[in-house]
């Protein structure tokens, strides 16, 4: 049964949320972990059940964080002080951390809303993908790399028999290898980057050797399977009658400009795309937490304290914390460290740390995690620079391309409005309606921010701070009309 108050509420059961729960569990606190998915573990630990090839098993074997995540779940799943609320999502964070939580009981039902107050609230909502739009990206069959990965990992379903993989994301290699494992055919990998863009990783290799091995294993797998790799290419158009049938890809120069005459048409049954990641900061923004812009950490991130031991990862609002990808896109290991650190810091603030000699060990553990966190930031910078699309690429988007998928707003409309002086994210939203639809700009918002930045060359703060209002995600009115009943849970 869900209670109306928990001393700790963690949003997101990914690696960061799990790590925070691990630090806080067993200390006499009552912890609630809320996750929208059916499973615990977030995107990284999404059901890798069933039969997979030896090669893929080896690849994931190189990932120590994943192994640690599996252990965390096993360890925490039955902890008495942790309550798991899956298929639930926080639609709003209000004054004094009063949470409006939407719970889905049955498929195809509107669900119901409950209210829960959090003593301390840890945001660990992870990241979503970033996209570089092109004509035809709204066709059925064009899907995100994440969507393809979920089909493959959770359901063992191929997005199509023949899949084209494209973008600038580290997920491309993962999706490609999962396609091979699932005995699908890869029509090709259309890679924004060239091999020389990888050089930035070399100085980091000493500290991040598991990632090097993992990357190496992926590449070997692709070579072994003779996958066509178009490096320095970009999808310039997707076409098909009722669904995706083929893509035109073209080479681009160092600055990101398409080189005419290099176009190749590649037929496929599906096209999986992604251009890196954006932190899911909307819950924090809606709550009123401050954001800051850090280009090499994925754009707008949650501003958190990183110095005072008693308030590590606390946002600008007291008792609300943000960890993992929310403080910068940096991968699972960084998320783990931050979750652990945030939990320990809360223990320190609540004076729940051990006394005497044990106290020294507690301090030492914190100090070492803080060092590791700094080290992980270097990798984060590389990751974001690597997946970043050059500004010029936004200049190249043709006018008929839809930018806001929900409201059907084209690049042409956006260009026209910017030309009329509506040259901030907020002004553009009013003048062009972009970001006003069902997704509330969670897909097009980062794109529009980058488009405006690229076209106006203005500072991020002038282009505009991110905004978010309740509800986070659409909320069925019926779910709000059902009287709250805490006893019906579990």
């Amino acid at each position, binding site marked *: 049964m869900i209670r109306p108050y928990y001393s700790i509420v963690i949003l997101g059961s990914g690696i960061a949320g799990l790590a925070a729960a691990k630090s806080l569990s067993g200390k006499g606190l009552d912890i609630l972990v809320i996750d*929208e998915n*059916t*499973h*615990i*573990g977030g*995107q990284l*630990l999404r*059901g*890798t*059940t*069933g*039969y*997979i*090839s*030896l090669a893929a*098993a080896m690849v994931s074997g190189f990932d120590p964080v994943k192994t640690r*995540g*599996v252990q965390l*779940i096993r360890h925490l*799943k039955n902890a008495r002080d942790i309550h*798991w609320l*899956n298929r639930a999502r926080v639609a709003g964070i209000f004054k004094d951390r009063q949470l409006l939580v939407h719970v889905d009981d049955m*498929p*195809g*039902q509107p669900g119901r809303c409950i209210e829960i107050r959090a003593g301390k609230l840890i945001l660990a909502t992870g990241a*979503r*993908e970033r996209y570089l739009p092109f004509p035809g990206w*709204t066709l*059925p*069959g*064009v*899907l*995100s790399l*994440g*969507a*393809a990965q*979920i*089909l493959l990992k*959770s*359901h*063992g*379903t191929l*997005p*199509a028999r023949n899949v084209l993989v494209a973008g600038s994301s580290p997920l491309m290699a993962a999706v490609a290898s999962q396609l091979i494992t699932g005995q699908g055919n890869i029509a090709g990998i259309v890679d924004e980057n060239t091999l020389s863009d990888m050089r930035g990783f070399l100085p980091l290799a000493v500290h991040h050797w598991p990632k090097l091995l993992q990357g190496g294993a992926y590449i070997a797998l692709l070579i072994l399977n003779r996958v066509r790799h178009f490096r320095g290419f970009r999808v310039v158009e997707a076409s098909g009658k*009722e*669904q995706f049938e083929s893509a035109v890809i073209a080479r681009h120069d160092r600055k990101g400009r398409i080189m005419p005459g290099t176009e190749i048409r590649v037929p496929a049954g*599906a096209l999986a795309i992604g251009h890196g990641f954006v932190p899911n900061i909307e819950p924090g923004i809606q709550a009123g937490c401050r954001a800051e812009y850090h280009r090499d950490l994925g754009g707008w991130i949650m501003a958190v304290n990183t110095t005072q031991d008693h308030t590590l990862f606390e946002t600008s609002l007291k008792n609300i914390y943000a960890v993992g990808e929310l403080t910068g896109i940096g991968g699972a290991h960084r998320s783990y460290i931050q979750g652990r650190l945030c939990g320990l810091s809360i223990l320190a603030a609540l004076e729940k740390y051990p006394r005497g000699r044990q106290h020294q060990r507690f301090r030492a553990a914190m100090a070492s995690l803080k060092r590791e966190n700094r080290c992980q930031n270097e990798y984060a910078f590389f990751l974001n620079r690597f997946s970043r699309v050059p500004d010029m690429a936004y200049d190249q988007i043709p006018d008929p391309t839809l930018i806001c*998928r*929900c*409201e*059907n707003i*084209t690049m042409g409309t956006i260009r026209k409005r910017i030309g009329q002086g509506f040259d901030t994210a907020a002004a553009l939203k009013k003048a062009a*309606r972009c970001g006003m*639809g*069902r*997704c509330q700009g*969670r*897909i097009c918002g980062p794109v529009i921010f980058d488009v405006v930045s690229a076209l106006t060359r203005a500072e991020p703060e002038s282009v505009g701070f991110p905004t978010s209002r309740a509800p986070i*995600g*659409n909320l069925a009115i019926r779910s709000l009309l059902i009287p709250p009943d805490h006893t019906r849970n579990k």
Partner: protein
Amino acid sequence: MCKMPEQIGDSPGTSPRQQGQQVIIRVDGRNISAREGETVHAALTAAGIYRLRRLPDGSARGVFCGMGICYECLVTIDGVPFQRACMNRVRGQMEIQTRDNVCTGGDK
């Protein structure tokens, strides 16, 4: 081929793909076999169904983000409209409608 030693990341009481029972669901009046517990997205993809709705201008849309953010994959499930195919789990006898699923919103 080998089986992974651990079943990772599934909360108590849910059924991953391999344990999901084979069930029949109806999509626009057509019978389709699916596994209980998998997402509607997965079931429809396995059946080769990509177009899930139309805009008033006639253009087709399907699953995009696959993780509940973009709201592109709205279908009618058991008579309840605007359900995300990527977030809803299959149950036996489920009725899914993608036809006549017109949502408004357009360039001004």
